[in-house]
């Protein structure tokens, strides 16, 4: 009896699994999904994802999930539903224009079904309606101008959410309210964007929230936002948030690096048969959280990571490039005025990176001159260049 105090209770709570936050970034590039329509339509993929999410939520009552879409011209939340979208949705439902279009499943609230675990139904409903809304608000002009996807933006949103959730899991305020299972407006795992609402279920344990990101990607061409993307990836690395990648189509360059640097799992489903087994890949490879992964041999392609980078000037993916010796920016060709685009250092190339000459020519005056010009600009002659030593 005397032992009933806070210290002992904390000790017993150690036995409980740490809650885990799964943030899914779904690439909804319409072009790419249209190409995949034959082997894996978007609806199927989403259904598979929903099963996966439900499995994740079922493992631990405190587990949470968030879904961001990386659309062709913007990144948006699918789940939890952002506050302004909820309002808007209520509006359009009042008109009867959007919500009840299908006649089935268009209710404002998820239907009450005794056969379904309530949090699942809520989550499925939210994701479905938000996805519908997203597709309805996409204009042809928008997708024709943007060939790729806003993955960097989506990653940033995911990271912001994760940091907010992590901060609220280890609260500095004393929140003593308990999760109310009978309240129909409360959501599984406290998935509100407002951190003050969901300190309830997990605030009593001092365990850290383990987080991870799963990117379901269908498009390549990420070089356009290379810097932003790599920044997000390195942020994940710093926060030790693994980025798992499920690549359904497209060029793998940077996502493979993302998985490799953050110690995540990279799986590429390149043929229709593999894509048909998407659910199995999700459940088998991506379901274990960070705690479980410590004791598992992880699947995925560990070898042959494509470590190429994109240049800062033309956004080309380069094999051999030029690197600013001061700030390490990457360029695909020598800079015209010899000034680094990023840090403004004055750089000189000596005579590297000229047009190759493989056949000796009798006349070589013009060529020589160019070399001399390049050589005159010695590093260190520029005033602002820091001494490279």
């Amino acid at each position: 009896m005397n032992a009933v105090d806070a210290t002992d209770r904390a000790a017993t709570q150690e036995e409980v699994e740490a809650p885990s936050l799964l943030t899914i970034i779904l690439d909804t590039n319409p072009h790419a999904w249209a190409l995949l329509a034959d082997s894996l339509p978007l609806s199927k993929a989403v259904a598979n994802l929903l099963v996966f999410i439900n499995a994740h939520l079922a493992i631990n009552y405190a587990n949470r999930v968030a879904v961001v879409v990386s659309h062709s011209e913007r990144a948006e939340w699918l789940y939890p539903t952002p506050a302004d979208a909820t309002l808007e949705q209520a509006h359009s439902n009042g008109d009867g224009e959007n919500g009840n279009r299908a006649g089935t499943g268009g209710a404002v609230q998820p239907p009450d079904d005794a056969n379904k675990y309530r949090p699942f139904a809520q989550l499925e409903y939210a994701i479905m309606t938000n996805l519908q809304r997203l597709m309805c608000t996409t204009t042809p002009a928008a997708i024709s101008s943007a060939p790729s996807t806003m993955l960097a933006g989506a990653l940033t949103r995911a990271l912001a959410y994760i940091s907010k959730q992590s901060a609220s899991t280890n609260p500095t305020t004393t929140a003593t309210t308990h999760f109310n299972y009978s309240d129909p407006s409360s959501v599984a795992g406290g998935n509100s964007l407002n951190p003050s609402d969901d300190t309830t279920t997990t605030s009593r344990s001092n365990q850290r929230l383990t987080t991870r990101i799963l990117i379901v990607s269908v498009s390549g061409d990420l070089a356009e936002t290379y810097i932003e993307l790599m920044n997000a990836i390195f942020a994940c690395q710093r926060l030790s948030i693994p980025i798992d990648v499920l690549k359904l189509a497209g060029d793998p360059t940077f996502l493979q690096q993302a998985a490799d640097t953050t110690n995540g799992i990279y799986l590429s489903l390149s043929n229709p048969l593999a894509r048909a087994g998407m659910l199995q890949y999700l459940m088998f490879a991506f379901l274990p959280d960070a705690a479980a992964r410590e004791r598992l041999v992880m699947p995925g392609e560990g070898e042959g990571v494509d470590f190429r980078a994109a240049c800062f000037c033309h956004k080309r993916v380069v094999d051999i490039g030029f690197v600013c010796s001061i700030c390490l920016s990457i360029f695909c060709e020598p800079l015209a005025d010899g000034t680094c685009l990023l840090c403004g250092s004055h750089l000189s190339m000596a005579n590297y990176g000229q047009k190759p000459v493989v056949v000796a020519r009798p006349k070589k005056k013009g060529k020589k001159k160019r070399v001399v010009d390049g050589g005159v600009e010695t590093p260190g002659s520029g005033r602002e260049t820091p001494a490279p030593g």
Partner: protein
Amino acid sequence: MSSLKTSVVYKKANGSLACDKRHLIWTPSIPSGVTPSLKIAVADITNLQQTGEASAKVALKVLVKDVSYVFSFTSKDEARKEQVAVTDTLRDAIATLKAAAASSLAPAVGTPGAAQNGGGDTGQSSSMAIAKALSAKPQDEGWYDDARLKSDFQLQRSLLESSKALDERFRQALRDKPETVSVPQFTAQFWSTRLHLLRAHAMEKSQKESEYNILPEIKYNTIIGADGEPIKMLNMTKEQVSLIFKQYPVVRQAYNETVPKPFADPKIFWSRFFASRLLKKLKEKNDPTDPALDRYLEYQEASGPASTAHIPHIIDLEGNEQNTKFHLEGDYEMRAAKHDRPILHLLNQMSEKLLSHVAPEDGDAHAPIGMDEGTFEQLQLRDLAMQDIDNRVVLNVREQQRYTGASGEDELSADARLYAKQDPNRVISSLQNDVQPQNLGSDEQGTLRLDRVLGYDSDDGDEDMDDEPNGVHTNGTSTRKVSIRVGSHAALTGASSSILSSMSQRRRNASTDAHGLNGLSQSVFDTLTITHNTTTEFLHYFWTLFLSGDSSRTSELTGLVSTLDRSLDRINAVGEQAEKERQERLEKMRGQVKEYFQRTGKKRRIDESAVGGGKAVVDEMVRPTVGALKQASEAYRRALEVQMREVAVGGQGSVG
């Protein structure tokens, strides 16, 4: 002093250029008898450049650090000759100056011992002397100069000697280098990529151990002489003598003043010296201390000059009690005699308790300490935690639009080109249809019946591969000949097996890392490593040369390309060697099985795939290298093709 006088034009003014071993003097000719207006010390000249042999204009460019002086030789017939003469004179003068500088520096640094060490490399002695001279002056910024590092052979050699791996790589690459590449060219290239190593080595060398104190090192050897008397023997080396002279100039002075006259023999001087009070005085500074006896030393000297030296009371620990004006009675706990009072212990304990409730600086800043949240809030050292100023530098890529805007159609990726073929309107409408609730298995109430959509049925076999699952929308594209149903049994099994195989591969990779040889013998592996190293070396060389745009080195480049091809042969040779080894091993195993069969009548199978090594393993290991080789030679061939064509066209043009 031989002086050379030539007529030149400098800055469009006629004049004469005179040159002796020290200076290069230019005198304008217009006001005759004027004093020389330009005088360049030979020692300052950093570089000389002349116009080509065939050139009509004869000029000499003299570079003094960053300033250059161009003299055009105007003499009608003799211009070239004069220019050559001036250049030669200057060159000689510079060379002699450098040598003189080196030799004058050498003795200052070269102790006899060091000279002996360097004795082996007589051929390099002058450059060695320079290197020594330079290394003796660490403040010399010359070590940051790439060109000097590249040309300092002695330094390079010593670096090679100190690093075995590098030495091996260098030798192997030197052996395999193409004929067309001369040794200087090769070494220049080799070191140009390793300047940092050279610099580090130079630094390291320049930091030598300082001199030790020589006197305590010299000890007597006591030998029992023929007459039974102990004789004290003193052995000194030449180096020790010179060190003594260097460290104790007074001894040198004594030696100079006494050796020819009072003492005929240096031996007498030394024996007297080692018995002298002078020696004791010199040694005094460096005597080892003896805690037991040294205090008597001090006691004796209490009246000596040391004790009368003034010590300020404020730092004089002994004087404090009596001499200070302040009385420390008020500071109870500060008094030495009272340090063990119980009240002080109590105070200390209280401080400890207070501190135990303060968040440790290295712990989690947000974690509550102690029981009470309120107390924690009060105690948390807010000014120390999480308040660091954000001092990041924001970097922006400037003028990016200039580049990205210009990307043409041809730069679109394969994906983007596929996308461009699709009609955006149709894409969107099909997707809008696709995400309707019924496609997600929505039933009458709107509950998603995911199990229906997934179409997973544990009983279904492979026969219903072509079946459309219930309620799946075909989204209008009736052209699809359904191949594999999403979530079919076959697909899921395939997924499982692919994941399992990737797992087992990962585990294999993780477990064999310790050995890493994959069944290759150590010798084959070493050969492979060396081959790989040299190949990388040549690839470096190739790209540097290839991208240098230097048309005078094309033959060198051609040779290098053939070397790259030969590298491929060498890799293959290693592969064959490994394969041979593997076969031998297999043969041996088969022999054992046969013998076992003859002995016992039982057959045993050997798992040939379990025997590692062989060509396959080698090929797998060097796959990236081979890829790099291919890419290099392809780049070369492409450039060659294009330029051959250009040359052919250009040739016709010039003929026509």
